[in-house]
C-alpha cells in the first residue's frame, strides 16, 4: 500500500504548507488516507503531526495546497458546510477532552442530543451500546473526574463514535497510559474502525503499539513527510530518521543537542567574564 489510489482515498493532502507567523510548521506535505484503513502519522514532538489533524478537521486552513475529505475541498467550505462535514468526523483528543461538568453518560449522549431529535429512549439505547463497545457501560453514571486516564480515553472514544463517523482521528491516543490501557485502546481503535466501516488516522509517537494495529505509516520530520509505507516495510527502512525513530536512538538526524554556539567558546567567554 505504498501509493494509495485517488478514487479510494477518503482524505488527501496535496502540497500543503502551513505556518504560524514566520515559523513554518508543514512544508509541501502530500498524504493520502484510503477508505477503511487505519493510518498512522508518526514523528517527534513539534514535528507538525497534530497540525495535520487540525487541517483535516478544518480548525486550521492551509496557507497553500489542498486538503480534501470525502472529495470536498475543506478550504472551500463555508461554516455550515464545515459543520456538516464535521458531523461525519470524530476526533479523540490527547486527554479525552471530556466535559467535566456532566456525567460519562451525558458526555456520550452530547453529540446525539445536539445533532438529532431522537427520543430519550433511543438515545439511551445508543449511549449504552457505545459504552458497551468500549467496555464502560458500568461507568455510565460516573463523573469524568472519577475516571482513570485510560477510562477517560475510552469514554471519549465512545463519544467520538456516537454519530458513527466515516473518519475518526486520534491525537496521541496512547500518551500517558499504562501498558494494559494502552493495549485496550490500541485494540479498540482497530476493532471499532473495522466494525463501523470507518477510516482512522492516528497521530502518535508510540512505535510499538501503533505498528501492531495500523495499515500504513507516514513519518513526519521538520514539517515534511520523510518516509511512508506499511509497518513491515518500515521496520527495515534505511531512511536515517526512521531508523533513529524506530530504534529510539538518542542521536542522529534528530540531534541530542539543541542548536547552540560552540561549547568551548561559551565556556571561554564565561571564564573571561
Amino acid at each position, binding site marked *: 500500500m505504498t501509493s494509495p489510489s485517488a478514487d479510494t482515498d477518503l482524505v488527501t493532502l496535496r502540497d500543503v504548507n502551513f505556518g504560524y507567523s514566520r515559523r513554518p510548521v508543514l512544508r509541501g506535505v502530500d498524504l493520502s488516507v484510503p477508505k477503511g484503513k487505519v493510518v498512522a502519522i508518526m514523528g517527534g514532538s513539534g514535528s507538525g503531526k497534530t497540525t495535520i489533524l487540525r487541517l483535516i*478537521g478544518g480548525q486550521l486552513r492551509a496557507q497553500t495546497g489542498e486538503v480534501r475529505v470525502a472529495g470536498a475541498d475543506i478550504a472551500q467550505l463555508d461554516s455550515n458546510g464545515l459543520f456538516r462535514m*464535521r458531523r461525519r*468526523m470524530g476526533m479523540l483528543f490527547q486527554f479525552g477532552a471530556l466535559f*467535566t461538568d456532566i456525567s460519562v453518560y451525558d458526555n456520550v449522549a452530547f*453529540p446525539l442530543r*445536539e445533532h438529532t431529535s431522537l427520543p430519550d429512549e433511543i438515545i439511551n439505547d445508543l449511549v449504552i451500546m457505545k459504552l458497551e463497545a468500549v467496555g464502560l457501560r458500568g461507568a455510565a453514571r460516573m463523573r469524568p473526574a472519577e475516571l482513570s486516564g485510560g477510562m477517560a480515553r475510552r469514554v*471519549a472514544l465512545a463519544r467520538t463514535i456516537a454519530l458513527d463517523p466515516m473518519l475518526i482521528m486520534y491525537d496521541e491516543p496512547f500518551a500517558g497510559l499504562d501498558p494494559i490501557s494502552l493495549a485496550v485502546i490500541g485494540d479498540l481503535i482497530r476493532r471499532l474502525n473495522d466494525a463501523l466501516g470507518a477510516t482512522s488516522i492516528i497521530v502518535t509517537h508510540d512505535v510499538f503499539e501503533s505498528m501492531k494495529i495500523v495499515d500504513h505509516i507516514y513519518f513526519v520530520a521538520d514539517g515534511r513527510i520523510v518516509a511512508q509505507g506499511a509497518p513491515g516495510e518500515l521496520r527495515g527502512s534505511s531512511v536515517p530518521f526512521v531508523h533513529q525513530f524506530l530504534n529510539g536512538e538518542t542521536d542522529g538526524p534528530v540531534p541530542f543537542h539543541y542548536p547552540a554556539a560552540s561549547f568551548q567558546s561559551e565556556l571561554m567567554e564565561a571564564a573571561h567574564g
Partner: protein
Amino acid sequence: MDEVARLLRRLGAGVIDRIWRLGYASRFMAMVLRDSTMAFRRFSLTMRELYFAGVLSLVIVGVSGLFVGMVLALQGFETLQNFGAAEAVGVLVATSLVKELGPVVAGLLFASRAGSAITAEIGLMKTTEQLSAMEMMAVNPIARVVAPRFWAGVISMPLLAAIFSVMGVFGGWIVAVKLLGVDNGTFWSQMQAQIDFRLGIVNGIIKSAVFGVAITAIAVFEGYDAPPTAEGVASATTRTVVASALAVLALDFVLTVFMFRGTGL
C-alpha cells in the same frame, strides 16, 4: 538616539497591540451576539448559567447590601442629626443605594464572584480542549458555551443590584428605626416622596444593566482568549476582575454625567 527609537518602537508596538486586541474583542462580541439565538431557543442552557452566575451570587450580594445599608444609616444619622434632619436618613440610604452603591458595589461583587468564575471556566475548557472537542463535534462553542453565559450575566446583574439595594434599605431600616429610634412612618414616607422613579430607580436599573453587559463581555472574552496554560487562565481571571472593576467605575462616572446632569438631583 537609538534609545529614543527603541522606546518609540516599544510604545508603538504596545499601542498597536492594544488596538488589535480591542478589534479582536469587538469582533468576538459581534460573533456572540450573532450566535445568541441558541441561548434563547434552548433557554435551559441560559437557566443553568443564571443559577451559577446569579443565584450563587445572592448570598454575597445580599449580605454585602445589608451591611452597606446599615453603615450608611449609622454614618448618615450622625451627620443629619447635626442639622436636625435625622428623619431623612431613609432618603439618604435609599438614594445612595439606588443611584450609586447598588449598581456599583453589586457590579464589583459580581465581577469578583461570577465574572472571575466565568473566565476561569471558559479558560479551563479551552485549556483541556473541551472547546476544540465541541468544534470538532460540529457544535459552535460560542453559541453553546459563551452566549448562554453572556446573557445569564446580563440578566443577573440588574436583579442582583436590585436585591443589593433592597437589602441595603432593609439594613438601613434596622439601624435607623430599630436601633436609633427614627420614626417608622417618617422613614418610609420621606423615602417614597423623595425618590423619583425615573431619575432614581430606572436610571439605577440602566446603570446595572450596562455594568452587566460590560462585566460579562470582559469575562467571556478573557476566558475565550486565555492562553491554554495554568498561568494563562490565572492571568485572564485577574484581568477580568481588574478590567471589570475599572470599567464599572469609569462607566458609572460617564452614565452619572449623562443621567443626572442639570436635574439638580
